[in-house]
């Protein structure tokens, strides 16, 4: 079979089982688009901005576990992808971005729409390739898919000069079945004796705590985790990226931890004597002041990436490997049927935790005049029975969604945790809807974030995506305003969103339905009716309390035990 470079690219994607490409055409990729046009298997989704393509592919990958594919042109096409690549890179999301490049003869000449794609994206990709011969295309694609999806996943960029995709030059095509990369060792594990050691530490703990992150979801280890927790009856907390890795409505679950984590989760972290960290990376938003982190705990860390071990917090025992595999081994080692395996009784510890729980740190002051943002999420949780795919943008609404929507299943909570990319929510929701066409997909956003990728409403109409967008509209960049209130004596520099559009009208001008909810009494019925519209996108603009803050809060430089609790909750003092 003789094919052109463009046809080879499409064939490679087919061999990898690609269903969707999110992209935007341009000069350097027109040959590829021509080959794509002729194919019947792969569907191309035309976005309105390349950043949207990357977030959509990212959302798709997070929701179904398969790599998201992006196709963009050279120059501005690829530079617009940088934020999306960095977002995926920080959260270890498998993604392949194919970018056009000017023809090889022009590379380095400042040609029209030329940008050094591999140079620009090197720090924000797991790896990248500049294809230099037609013959190497299949090998490069095989390598790219392998690198993106194995070990700690991540985005990979393939930059393809236009002349290599010339439809007139055809060469024989064969896709390699297997590929070996001597320099790439996705998983290095050497845990044999350490598993027993870890099991012993765990069984002997009197104040144990389990802290899990996105690695449980990426490593598909949720079942193994559930088995372990149920067997041990230990308390467990999830990071922002780890929500859904363990059922959020389960009694062992203490809520999210960290800067806006629950009182009970953070206190249990501070007091525990053995900490089992699984697929989590001790991010600064999780640890608070590292010198005050888990002061009396022996720490066991399970992670697929050796460079994550002791990166921020020195750990006592590390188990490197796929989270599901290591948890399997650990579950086997802690076999309660065996006589010599006994787990310490931790009733006292639970009594203490239940006392912390009684603080009810997520309580907030109810109002019948103004809509409280927390109430919107609570109602959304009730109305969707906790079973929707939720994407979010970045800021207060993201934290409230994480705190008040309980995720019982993995891959349901999709947000930019590491990079904190405003504008992520809407395009990510598009990707999720393509991955799960029949499911309810909701984007929880704020009026500042949504405007960063609002153009994608047009894409939503083109593909009739029945998303629901819940806009917590407080006319402020809420999280910025909160920090300015706390740390800048209320000088709200540039955080007020003046001259906002009428979002309902904006949505309808894009061909969707838009509603505005202003009264607490209208919230439930109006949201219910909007959510029942299964065949169309509804933009639900909810006018919320401008002054509401996210609590609890650990200020930077403070430890887990030094939370700021809500003044309207049960405790107004510093904990």
């Amino acid at each position, binding site marked *: 079979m003789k094919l052109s470079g463009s046809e080879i690219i499409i064939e490679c994607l087919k061999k990898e089982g690609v269903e969707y490409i999110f992209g935007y055409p341009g000069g350097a990729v027109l040959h590829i688009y021509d080959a794509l046009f002729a194919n019947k298997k792969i569907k191309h989704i035309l976005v309105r901005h390349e950043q949207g393509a990357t977030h959509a592919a990212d959302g798709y990958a997070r929701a179904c576990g398969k790599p998201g594919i992006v196709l963009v042109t050279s120059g501005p096409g690829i530079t617009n992808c940088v934020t999306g690549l960095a977002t995926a890179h920080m959260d270890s999301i498998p993604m392949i971005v194919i970018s056009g490049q000017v023809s090889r003869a022009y590379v380095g000449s400042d040609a029209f729409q030329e940008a050094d794609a591999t140079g620009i994206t090197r720090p924000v990709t797991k790896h990248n390739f500049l294809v230099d011969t037609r013959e190497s295309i299949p090998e490069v694609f095989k390598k790219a898919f392998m690198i993106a999806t194995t070990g700690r996943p991540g985005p990979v960029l393939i930059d393809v000069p236009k002349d290599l995709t010339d439809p007139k030059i055809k060469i024989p095509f064969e896709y390699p079945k297997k590929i070996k990369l001597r*320099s790439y060792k996705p998983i290095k594990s050497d845990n044999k004796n350490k598993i027993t050691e870890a099991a012993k530490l765990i069984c002997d703990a009197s104040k144990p705590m389990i802290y899990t992150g996105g690695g449980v979801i990426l490593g598909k280890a949720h079942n193994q985790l559930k088995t372990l927790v149920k067997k041990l009856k230990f308390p467990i907390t999830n990071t922002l990226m780890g929500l859904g890795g363990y059922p959020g409505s389960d009694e062992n679950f203490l809520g999210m931890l960290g800067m806006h984590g629950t009182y009970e989760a953070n206190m249990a972290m501070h007091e525990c004597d053995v900490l089992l960290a699984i697929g989590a990376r001790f991010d600064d938003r999780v640890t608070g002041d590292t010198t005050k982190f888990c002061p009396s705990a022996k720490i066991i860390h399970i992670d697929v990436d*050796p460079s994550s071990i002791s990166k921020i917090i020195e750990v006592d025992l590390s188990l490197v490997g796929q989270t599901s595999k290591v948890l399997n081994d650990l579950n086997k080692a802690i076999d309660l049927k065996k006589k010599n395996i006994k787990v310490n009784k931790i009733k006292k510890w639970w009594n203490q935790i239940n006392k912390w729980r009684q603080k009810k740190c997520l309580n907030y002051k109810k109002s019948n005049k103004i809509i409280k943002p927390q109430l919107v999420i609570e109602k959304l949780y009730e109305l969707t029975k906790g079973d929707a795919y939720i994407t979010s943008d970045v800021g207060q609404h993201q934290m409230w969604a994480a705190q008040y929507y309980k995720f019982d299943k993995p891959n349901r909570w999709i947000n930019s945790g590491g990079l904190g990319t405003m504008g992520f929510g809407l395009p990510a929701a598009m990707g999720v809807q393509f991955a799960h066409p029949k499911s309810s997909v909701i984007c929880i956003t704020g009026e500042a974030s949504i405007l960063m990728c609002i153009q994608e409403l047009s894409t939503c109409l083109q593909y009739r995506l029945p998303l629901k967008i819940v806009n917590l509209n407080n006319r402020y960049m809420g999280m910025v305003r909160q920090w300015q209130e706390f740390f800048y004596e209320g000088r709200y520099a540039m955080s007020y969103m003046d001259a906002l559009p009428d979002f309902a009208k904006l949505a309808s001008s894009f061909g969707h339905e838009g509603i505005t909810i202003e009264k607490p009494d209208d919230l439930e019925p109006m949201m219910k009716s909007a959510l029942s519209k299964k065949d169309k996108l509804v933009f639900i603009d909810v006018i919320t309390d401008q002054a509401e803050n996210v609590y609890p809060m650990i200020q930077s430089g403070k430890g887990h035990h030094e939370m700021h609790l809500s003044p309207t909750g049960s405790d107004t003092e510093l904990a």
Partner: protein
Amino acid sequence: MEEKRHILSLLVENEFGSLSRIAGLFSARGYNIHCLNVAPTNDESISRMTLVTFCNEQKIQKLMRLLEKLVDVVNVKDLTGETHIEREMLLMKIKCNKKQRNELKRLTDIFRARIIDVSDTTYTIELTGVAEKILAFINSLGNIKIIEMVRSGTLGISRGAESLQSKG
């Protein structure tokens, strides 16, 4: 923790962008590169890099893991942890009039350096040795004017049968 000199030996894929990836890691993660040498090896698909950096034990462990993670890095080793041989080469052009020639010849002999080029007014000298020897030679020149100099940066290799393998 005390900062120490570490000599890292790396085998990297001889591919477009490899050097930039490694240099980029150092700058992105806040490590200095004291000196760096890259050249081909007997296996044409692999380049060998020797790199000297100063950092404490904890930071060097992290750095090694980050380097190992790079897709282009085939193998990496901290030579400082074992017995090794290191050498550096210096090429130096110095001002030298007829009166100074004898003195300079004696000095190069003491350091086992070689005069490899001569002009009416200059000597060009080649010297190989450990970094301390190179520095000692430079310091011994006193008032003699250095016109230009170039150093290869440290090169290192393990002693005995130990070697850095390109596994796989």
